[in-house]
């Protein structure tokens, strides 16, 4: 939390390099990129929990896997939103908002993100369609792993194949490019990433504990 408070205040107040195309919107880097980071971390943890479940058959892992995926989706949506807003101010035309969404939605990175979200929505639909608890856990864990194995190529390969205005389109991950970021920005950026990720993990652990408690009361009554 402390890290996040730092990120919020510093993110809005600190000096940023004034690039002609970005100007003040560069401050969004603290939020937008951080959310993607958080989402990827949460999805990865969700898959690890799914693998653990298949190994141990412990329903606790299945619960964790689900909660991480849900929180991951929330951060994914936030990242999608901040990303498309940021983009519409930097390289799409903000004055023609009526026809920019179809332009925005074509952006390969956003396609990748949309696919990621769709996969996890499908995961939730699949989960809810099965009534038997053990069966639900096993099948959705299998789908989780299968989908994740497909998601990574999508996110890493597709943006490199299609033309994009997103920074770091062809040469690598823009968030980890050490040369391009200004020192001042970096001072806020990394704590911000860490803060978002920790916030995500924190929310998920709370949700996990809540679900466990609910189960306990269910069994008691």
């Amino acid at each position, binding site marked *: 939390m402390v890290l996040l408070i730092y990120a919020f205040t510093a993110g809005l107040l600190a000096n940023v390099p004034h690039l002609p195309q970005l100007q003040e919107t560069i401050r969004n880097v603290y939020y937008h990129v951080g959310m993607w980071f958080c989402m990827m971390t949460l999805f990865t943890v969700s898959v690890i929990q799914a693998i653990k479940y298949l190994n141990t058959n412990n329903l606790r892992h299945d619960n964790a896997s689900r909660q991480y995926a849900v929180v991951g989706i929330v951060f994914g949506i936030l990242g999608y939103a901040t990303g498309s807003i940021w983009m519409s101010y930097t390289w799409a035309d903000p004055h023609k908002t009526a026809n920019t969404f179809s332009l925005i939605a074509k952006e390969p990175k956003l396609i990748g993100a949309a696919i990621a979200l769709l996969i996890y929505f499908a995961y939730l639909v*699949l989960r809810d369609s099965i009534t038997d608890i053990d069966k639900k856990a096993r099948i959705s864990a299998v789908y989780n792993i299968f989908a994740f194995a497909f998601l990574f190529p999508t996110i890493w390969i597709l943006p490199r194949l299609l033309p994009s205005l997103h920074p770091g389109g062809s040469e690598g991950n823009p968030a980890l490019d050490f040369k391009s970021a200004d020192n001042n920005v970096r001072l806020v950026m990394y704590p911000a990433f860490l803060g978002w990720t920790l916030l995500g993990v924190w929310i998920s652990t709370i949700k996990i504990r809540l679900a466990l408690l609910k189960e306990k009361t269910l069994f008691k009554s």
Partner: protein
Amino acid sequence: MKNLTQIWTLFKKDLLLEIRQQYSFYGIVLYVASTLFVLYMAIEEPEANVWNGLFWVIQLFICINAVAKSFLQESRSRMLYYQSIVSPQNFVLAKLLFNTLLMLAMSALSILLFTIFLGNPAQKTAQFIGVVLLGGWGLSLVFSFLAAIAAKAQQNAAIMAILGFPIIIPELMLLMRVSKTAFSDLLTFPVTTVLLLVALDGMVIMLSIILFPFLWKD
């Protein structure tokens, strides 16, 4: 050796069932033909891009229809019987093999029908056929595995579509890009993309072998 004979026997059993019943094969043929006829009525000679898009979308739906029944047709008691005589890996490999064959036949057929009804904008025919077969193979692998999941979830083909679409979008995009290059002499053939597709298919086979045992046991 024992594994191979098991796979072969299961494969032959599926093939025999298909030949005896023939309902699904002709059902899909009819499906393709009627869809194409509707398209032919609506747009007589689509341009290359539209043709490409239509072709792959129809390919996708053919695949869902063709592959969905492979796991859904097995009754619960029959699955138990299989469970007692073969290992899950062999079972899933036999299914993948059969679905691959089915989908390759369907792909060849749909190229033929597309060419008859809507013309064929491909300049490099051999290359295009190669890409289509590769695509059909990839689609059939992914959807076979999803059919296994859907069958276990005791759901119909609808859940398969929900599960499958987001996963298959990137592969379809790659396929469309590759097949587009076959439409003009100027564009070079992207070898790396094709290799990538083959790698994805390999990954699906690996994942099916690893994950199917978990789906199998009840």
